[in-house]
């Protein structure tokens, strides 16, 4: 069992993701944007983060960049889950040291096996 921080500004998607993770036996912490996610990161020390890219206040890329500077986020697996496919964004994801890139709509089994694999 891992503790997963799920970040998405759309409540529906956040709940869907959290639900899928909970049913996989994981402990889930949610956040609605990057700013909130950073707070939750410090507070809950998750084993893995799955975050949306486009969010208000602080987007997923900026969040990962900031999280890597935190003690709790230094070597933390952090996955982007997004509908974006542009290579420029993927390059930027790599530059900010995101752990991986997943495309929405997500496949619950894939998410669960990746959490197993990475966290």
């Amino acid at each position, binding site marked *: 069992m891992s503790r997963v921080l799920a970040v998405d500004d759309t409540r*529906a998607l956040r*709940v869907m993701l959290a639900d899928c993770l909970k049913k996989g036996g994981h402990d889930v912490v949610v956040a609605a944007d990057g700013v909130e996610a950073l707070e939750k990161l410090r507070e809950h020390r998750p084993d893995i983060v799955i975050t949306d890219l486009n969010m208000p206040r602080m987007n997923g890329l900026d969040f990962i960049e900031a999280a890597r500077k935190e003690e709790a986020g230094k070597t933390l697996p952090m996955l982007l889950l997004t509908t974006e496919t542009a290579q420029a964004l993927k390059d930027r994801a790599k530059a900010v040291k995101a752990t991986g890139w997943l495309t929405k709509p997500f496949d*619950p*089994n894939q998410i669960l096996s990746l959490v197993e694999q990475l966290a």
Partner: protein
Amino acid sequence: MSEFAEILDTPDKNGAAATGPIRQYVTFLVDERSYGVDINLVREIKQWTPTTTLPNQPHYTRGVLNLRGTIVPVHDLRARFGGMLTEATEVHVVVIVWIGSKTVGILVDAVSDIISVPADEIRPVPSGQSLGDMSALNGLVNTENGMVALLDLNTLFPVEEDSF
């Protein structure tokens, strides 16, 4: 979809100690009224973008859009219930749902919430209500924010399965 069903259909262990299995619905607004769709049928939620109009379709069919390379029809829920065509703008939302094996978009005013409802709190639709097309509703739920009408997507937007 079947994967969703497998994972999500099992009763929510974290759910409240209610009677009967808990169902979850994504709710959205059209003309201040709340409608709900089974969360398992919701693929994603998109901001409105202009669609490509199809000739000779029911007026509520707004056309098709490009969802990452596949063509998806978009229906206007307000118009389907007999209202005016939605003057869609960037603040409007298209809920992408599964209907049978097909992916379909439904244009609504806004997505509002996700509600968890014990199955036995879903009330049948009384006849003579003024909610529009009654056969297109699966049931009614009372929430603290008012009544939510649960949509029967197959009846609202029937899809044809492929055949030669």
